[in-house]
């Protein structure tokens, strides 16, 4: 049912009330061993997980795999491994993201085969190399595609030529909607450093794009 609702929800609609207080309380319950707290907490993360899947999914699987189904798989995987969460330092959103990453790796392996090629892909995955595929794979209409091609191309090339860590910061902040704090935690650096990194990455990207103007 919940899936249905998100499907029809309109962006102007108020998101389901999931107060930070509730979340903290529920997380506490979950850590304490109350599995029932997991479902509402997961719901709050669903959109972000879906975005991560959308971004990290190999373009070859477009149309074959519905990101929503992957998120469902993440749910099941996480539910079965709640014991691991209880022994984990990460906050729930980041822990879920890690479970999601693993789910995606398994999925890629299953669908694309465990060839050397996909092993390379998995490595790429870990450092957000998928970005090129992501940008290049993002399509509008065929006619529009032609118009936007150049712009995309530039963005792709620019991102590709960046440091891994710069690219990852931009990825996490923009494509996965992680907060600065979460990025800091994930990369194991301070918040200030993360924020620095972000602005620096953005500035570099701007530089790489030259005088190119956004539409």
């Amino acid at each position, binding site marked *: 049912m919940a899936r249905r609702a998100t*499907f*029809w929800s*309109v*962006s*102007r609609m108020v998101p389901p009330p999931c107060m*930070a207080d509730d979340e903290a309380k529920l997380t506490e319950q979950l850590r304490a061993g109350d599995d029932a707290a997991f479902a509402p907490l997961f719901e709050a993360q669903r959109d972000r997980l*879906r*975005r991560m899947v*959308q*971004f990290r*999914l*190999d*373009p*070859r699987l*477009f*149309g*074959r795999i*519905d990101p*929503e189904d992957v998120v469902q798989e993440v749910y099941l995987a996480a539910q079965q491994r709640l014991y691991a969460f209880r022994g984990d330092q990460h906050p729930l959103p980041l822990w879920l993201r890690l479970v999601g990453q693993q789910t995606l790796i398994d999925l890629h392996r299953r669908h694309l085969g465990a060839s050397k090629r996909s092993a390379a892909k998995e490595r790429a995955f870990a450092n957000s190399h998928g970005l*090129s*595929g*992501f*940008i*290049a*794979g*993002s*399509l*509008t*209409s*065929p*006619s*529009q*595609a*032609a118009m936007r*091609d150049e*712009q*995309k*191309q530039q*963005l*792709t090339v620019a991102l590709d030529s960046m440091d891994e860590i710069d690219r990852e910061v*931009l990825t996490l902040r*923009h*494509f996965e909607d992680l*907060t*600065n*704090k979460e990025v800091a935690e994930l990369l194991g650096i*301070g*918040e200030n450093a993360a*924020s*620095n990194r*972000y*602005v620096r990455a*953005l*500035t570099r*990207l*701007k530089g790489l*794009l030259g005088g*190119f*103007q*956004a539409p």
Partner: protein
Amino acid sequence: MSDRDGIQGESREPLDLLAEEFLQRVRKGESISARQFAALHPAHGQELSDLLDTLLLLENAKRDRETSVSGGRRLQLPKLERLGEYRIVREVGRGGMGVVFEAVQESLDRRVALKVLPQASLLSGNQLERFRREAQTAARLHHTHIVPVFDSGEADGLHFYAMQFIDGRSLDMVVKSLRAEPSSGASTVLRDRCRLAARLGAEVADALHHAHQQGTLHRDVKPANLLLDGDEHVWVTDFGLAKALQHDGLTHTGDVLGTLQYMAPEQFSGHYDARSEVYALGATLFELIALRPAFAAESRAELIDRIRAGRCERLRRLLPTIPHDLETIVARAMAIEPARRYATAAEFGSDLRAYLEDRPIAARRQSGLELLSGWCRRNRALASAGVIAVVATVTAAVVGWSAYWTTREALNLRTASERAAIQSQQAALQASERDRANLEDTLEVFEDVFDTIVGPDPLYALLEDAEENGATVTALRAPVDTNALALLERMLDFYDKFAERNRDNATLRHQTARSYARVGTIQERLGAHDEAVAAYERAATLLREIGDPEQKDELAALLQELGQVQVRRGQPRVAASCYSQSLEILEKGAVDPLPKVRWLGARAHYLLATVPGFREGRGELMRGFAGGPAGGADALPRARRNAARERRRDSEPSLAPPRDPLAEPSFAQLQQQARGHIEAALLTLRALLAEDQESSEYRFLLARCLIEQARMAGRAEPNLLSASMQEALAILKQLVAEQPKNDAYRFELCEAQLPPSRARSPGGPTPAVLEQLVSEARTLVEHQPLHPEFQALLARALSLWGSRVHEAESQRDPRAGLAPLEEALALQRTLGTDRKPREPRFAAEEMQTMRRIVRVKLDAGDVEAAKTTARQLVTSLIAAQREGGGFGRLEDRLGDLPQLLQRLGLSELMRELEEAERRRR
């Protein structure tokens, strides 16, 4: 999103905080431009504004992705219960153009599919106009395979159109579910799928042609727009809508990536006509047959590149058993240049029908030269100089690329002085990067050319899928015509250089090994057996050096090819050793070997059993071989062990008595070994067939093993002889019935019914049967006039027929049978003479016919002519003995020659023969 930590300003960059604020406002839907926002924070000036532009770019990229992956998420519709006079029943799907509902038109109480477009506010006035116009045009199309459009209009601010509700699935869903079926690769399933694809394709082509004649283009032909209803009736839907809604982001959804797959190359440069739809339908059929898209690409840019260059997957490579005609038709429809496609959808449809009805098709397969010239067209800079120049250029590219590797490796060296020395080569290095890309393309094209001229590379064909190996099991080597010969020699040059240049390059080793293997195959086709052996041996050495366990079956297959060349060179012992090594490699380590490994194993056993001289038990041929490490001495116990493993039984005690491993194998022992091999091959094949009954490959090899078994059984075991032979013939007849155009099956069927030429064969087929075989063989020769095996078969059939006719009718007409015998001899005189040394079997068959002619001439009272032929025959026999040819025991080879010589008063010739035989021993 940042509510939880956005306030902790002191730990964040001010620009970061501003960026975040701006992003949040944009995401909430506020219409604020980067400039406006930046103006609110003048302290940061232009810098902020620029950053925000970059940020928006990223944000756009994300939005595109979300819509492209999830399809239709941005099509926001309020929950609908009715629309105008339509009562909505349920949502049935979302596509690029909107949401589709099943609905009931209440005034007429009819079930309709209602396609609802996004809110009208998103459509410009022009677009709406275009949409209405296209809907009207579509409504005017009446065709049994076009979904009728009933109505279009607007209600509650939503635009919609109503069409007949088709209770079924779109072809993309059909493909998806077919792909999920585990048996999708089995050959009958493929056959059915090919026929289905052809039928649907023909019907859709009709529908498109109908529309084209009305001046309407569909503009978005793809599986998702073809519906298959419960009666397997296909419907084309969404005529013209792509055009109506293009621009302004309305077709913003996930299926665009799909659409791109079916776009004709010329569309990227703005051309579109009926032939583009022929292309799109071709790409659709490709996917329906192969169950995967025609182009495999990891990114959009790569996909477009591939489409424009026409670098699609090869159907035959994906599905080795796909009917040739269908492959050709699809390839023609998908030609890069519109002019090379079917000019109209109707022509496309009619060729598909021709395939379905087994009539000749209009499309022709591209020859190797056409492929090459196609490549030239795509590489215009090279094209003007012609094929030879192309090859030369390609070779240069290879050389350049090798230089690149050398440079690269050199760059890895540490010292500064070395680095400085190398710096001047950097520019060359960059050029080499381009060469590398070119080279990859080139290798691909050359593989195509190679496949086209030589037939699928036997070595790699059989590695990719056991299904593929029809022609490779047989001795059937397609002859090389003179035009192709020149090209082959050029390719040889290419592969040779490639292999030579890159011999020590670790990265390229595997590619190099393959190149050597190809050199071997080409040399063999050119008749240069020694060179072929050398090339195959280098390939084998390289593969051994690489030592990759994943390539061990490649090595095993290579050794089998090498063995077959050795047989042709008259080196059966070496051949047997190759086969044994191959077997050993295949057996090593594999606990649960893959079907292809088991198949290769069966093939190795079969080849071992049929090494010339083995079956005849000619011991001296096997001298030295018996005791070797990979020798045949333990072949029987090993064969039995394998056989036992196939039966999943514990090993049984070996039936062979213990013996001195260095002793010369006896006649009986060799025969027993051969039987052991056949037994092992049969068991493996039967086990494989239990897993896949459809495989024509397994069945074909099984039939060949059975024929071998029957021949070994001979007169000593008439029951086994007839049982095996009958089963073999039944299998072959079935195969011929399934694939009437496969000459290899027809050949084998004829072959099986002819007793082997080397043995004395009393009894055997009647003249009537032989006459039938002669006519079958003539058909084969007419089919491929230059094929030496076909000619040899015809000659043997003629010779035996003539001999039998003579036996039956010499009382009435002493010259009976002479005509076919002379025809046979005329053929046999030339067979195999283009290669030195000539293969012994050709000489043996020629001599047999000569002997028969002596007999007929003698019976006819033409003593002088008989004497002349007899002298020639004896001379040939002695020559053959000197060369070590002529297998089997002397008396077997001579047949009734001693009696004939006696009758002719030429007994001294007999003594010469015996003398020669003594010397040889």
